[in-house]
């Protein structure tokens, strides 16, 4: 198992984690622990959200940058860690 797979596996074993998606800066999936359709629908929405948020943060202050994004919903929590080359999205179930 590669270092990458080991890290994914460790993250996946954290309490409540139901999905991990890693995309590159073009929105292409590098890795996903959920099925293709779910990956597609989540990626489309989260990628857009992330880009829009990043842009707006820089518009408000050109020296500032987005480092983390957390969406809390009734059923789950979605954590988005954007980096220069990739974005990691983790979905944690709250039940």
């Amino acid at each position, binding site marked *: 198992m590669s270092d990458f797979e080991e890290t994914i596996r460790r993250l996946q074993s954290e309490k409540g984690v139901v999905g991990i998606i890693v995309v590159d800066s073009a929105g292409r999936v590098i890795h996903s622990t959920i099925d293709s359709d779910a990956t597609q629908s989540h990626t489309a929405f989260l990628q857009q959200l992330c880009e829009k948020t990043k842009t707006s943060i820089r518009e408000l202050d050109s020296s500032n940058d987005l480092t983390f994004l957390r969406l809390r919903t009734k059923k789950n929590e979605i954590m988005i860690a954007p980096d220069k*080359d990739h974005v990691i999205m983790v979905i944690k179930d709250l*039940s």
Partner: protein
Amino acid sequence: KTQTVQIVPPLSDEEKYRLTLDPEFLDSFNRSCKVISRALNEEIDICINYTKDPYEKAIA
């Protein structure tokens, strides 16, 4: 409903594999995972008990 879709060819399995071996990628990837790990391990749930319906959590 119209939606602008940018057609980007997906990464090939080989491209994905090579990327996950790249030290620079792994470096920032691991860094992001540490932040996420901390967030996942937070003990206090800031939203708990603050819904209108006390049983909403069970229903959801």
